[in-house]
């Protein structure tokens, strides 16, 4: 996880299956909430490249996306890039399902091709 406050670029990558996702993601959600509140005019871009999310992590990510969606509704410039490998159908479907429930935020499905 790499969140750069100066550039507004937030990156989360890898696999997520903590025992207690609520506990693990709470400070992250807090940080993002405070950041978005303080820098309302800043363009924020979240790059997500998750190979696997267990069910409780999936909930945590929905909470994060909902937060960004709310800010986008209020006029903030927010983009979410859901990155997935070309041969990972599950990751693609996961991204598609998230985007179905988000209303205002720009949610891009970005295919990563192996060179």
């Amino acid at each position, binding site marked *: 996880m790499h969140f750069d406050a100066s550039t507004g670029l937030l990156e989360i990558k890898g696999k997520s299956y903590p025992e*207690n996702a609520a506990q693990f*993601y709470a400070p992250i959600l807090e940080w993002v909430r405070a950041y978005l509140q303080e820098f309302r005019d800043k363009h924020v871009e979240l790059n997500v490249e998750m190979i696997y999310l267990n*069910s409780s992590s999936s909930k945590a990510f929905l909470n994060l996306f909902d937060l960004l969606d709310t800010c986008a509704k209020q006029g903030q410039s927010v983009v979410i890039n859901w990155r997935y490998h070309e*041969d*990972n*159908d*599950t990751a693609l479907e996961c991204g598609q*399902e998230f985007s179905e429930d988000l209303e205002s935020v720009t949610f891009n499905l970005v295919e990563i091709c192996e060179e």
Partner: protein
Amino acid sequence: MALSVRELYTNLMSEGIIFCFCGSVSQSIVEGIGETLWQRMELEGAQTSTIGKVFPIFVEQMQNILTYSAEKICSDKNGGEELRFGIVTVGKAEGRFYVCCGNYVDGRAAEILATRLSELQTMNKEQLKELYKQQRKIATLEGKSTGAGLGFIDMARRASKPLEFDLISVDDNRLFFSMTTTI
């Protein structure tokens, strides 16, 4: 009569079981085995490989033991990490891989499991998808488990046929729960 390791090994092999873990489950163990399984998957070259399908089910079942198993001890070391007991096996039957888990549960947990799993058995893929999205929205993140059974719905969605489960009464307030997810 002592059960020799060779006998146990032979029995497991003859049942088509390719992986078996029986004992105390902790998050460290889930991560350790998980990462090893994942490395094996990478060596085989693709995330759509069999192990890539087995991995999510394996994690959910191990973590269910962490949540539901009535057999547990709390460790004073390891920052108070809780150890819970159960069994997880991965095997192959009729050409399909399956992941099976078993652990003791108390009466209350047994009721919740029976209700939830029976309901899931009747649902098709579309219904499971809708239920998953619905439960994910309403579940709060308080406490260790979402309490919404998201893990079970996730497994049901990944399975090629309805989840199978069994609850066997052991004494007044304990039952042995077992569940099979066929991939």
